[in-house]
């Protein structure tokens, strides 16, 4: 029944198709399936959009999703969300969909493999300096590392690396442990109880997607924010008293 056996902690070892040195494992297959699903649904829905009061239910769904994401980004970063929506929204949607599809039998969440989560974390690791430099310029961004003194430089660098590692291992550990606990419980108490854990696993998956996106936004905002706060304080000096 299970695609990944109890003995393996990653879906990378399940090779579905092999030709020469090119092999297609379960992680890659399901990643591409999730990507295709997301792309197809958004393409089909956005093909005929209406601006009037009468809209299709799919357009309504996408509008709710996008406006909720915009609100969250605006609240977390205190900036206009347009610049960050493509990256953060894609992270959230991809992780959420790939976690939630776990209710389908035979599907293995690609986020339960350390290579997928490491790739996602590395894209956040790259996005932070990209947004920071785009916002403040290279000098302004790099100045953050030597603040308050130059002795803090190694700690800043260590912090960047360790938080990337934490992002990857957190998502991987949560998703992998959810699957494994389900499999172990199925062997110990096969009646009803694994279903409850599965439901809990869906909730955990959604919360982890939310946390991953929010943390990515917090990291990007911390690289871009100081500049904006100073501007805002100059504009509204009495903001704190309201």
């Amino acid at each position, binding site marked *: 029944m299970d695609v990944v056996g109890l003995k393996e902690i990653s879906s990378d070892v399940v090779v579905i198709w092999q030709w020469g040195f090119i092999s297609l494992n379960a992680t890659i297959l399901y990643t591409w399936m999730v990507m295709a699903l997301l792309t197809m649904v958004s393409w089909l829905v956005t093909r005929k959009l209406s601006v009037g009061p009468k809209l299709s239910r799919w357009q309504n769904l996408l509008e709710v999703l996008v406006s909720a994401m915009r609100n969250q980004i605006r*609240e*977390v970063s205190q900036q206009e969300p347009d610049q960050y929506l493509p990256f953060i929204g894609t992270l959230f949607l991809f992780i959420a969909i790939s976690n939630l599809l776990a209710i389908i039998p035979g599907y293995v969440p690609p986020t339960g493999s350390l290579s997928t989560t490491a790739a996602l974390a590395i894209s956040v690791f790259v996005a932070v300096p990209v947004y920071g430099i785009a916002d403040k310029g290279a000098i302004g961004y790099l100045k953050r590392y030597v603040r308050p003194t130059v002795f803090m430089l190694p700690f800043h660098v260590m912090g960047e690396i360790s938080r990337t590692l934490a992002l990857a*291992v957190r998502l991987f*550990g949560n998703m*992998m*442990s959810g699957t494994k606990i389900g499999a172990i419980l199925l062997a110990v108490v096969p009646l009803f109880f694994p279903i409850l854990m599965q439901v809990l696993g869906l909730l955990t998956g959604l919360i982890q997607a939310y*946390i991953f996106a*929010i943390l990515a936004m*917090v990291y990007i905002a911390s690289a871009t924010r100081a500049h904006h706060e100073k501007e805002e304080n100059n504009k509204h000096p009495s903001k704190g008293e309201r």
Partner: protein
Amino acid sequence: MDHISIIGMASIITAGLTICIGSIGPALGEGRAVAQALSSIAQQPDESGTITRTLFVGLAMIESTAIYCLVIAMILIFANPFWDYVVSR
């Protein structure tokens, strides 16, 4: 004792100890965080959205220490490199 039994015994005992000790700290920390957040929400219900979001992010940070321990324990039991080396020899 031969190598296989020593490595097997050490891995299993260490995996149990890892989970056991590693879950104490995060459990205490999460309890404190949730208690503090609940009392903050009781005092300022208007700010419950911000408090809840910050609470979730903070809980994820705290929980990741326990998740590290879980990953180490899982590696020790399911994907132990020393075990694989000794078995393959």
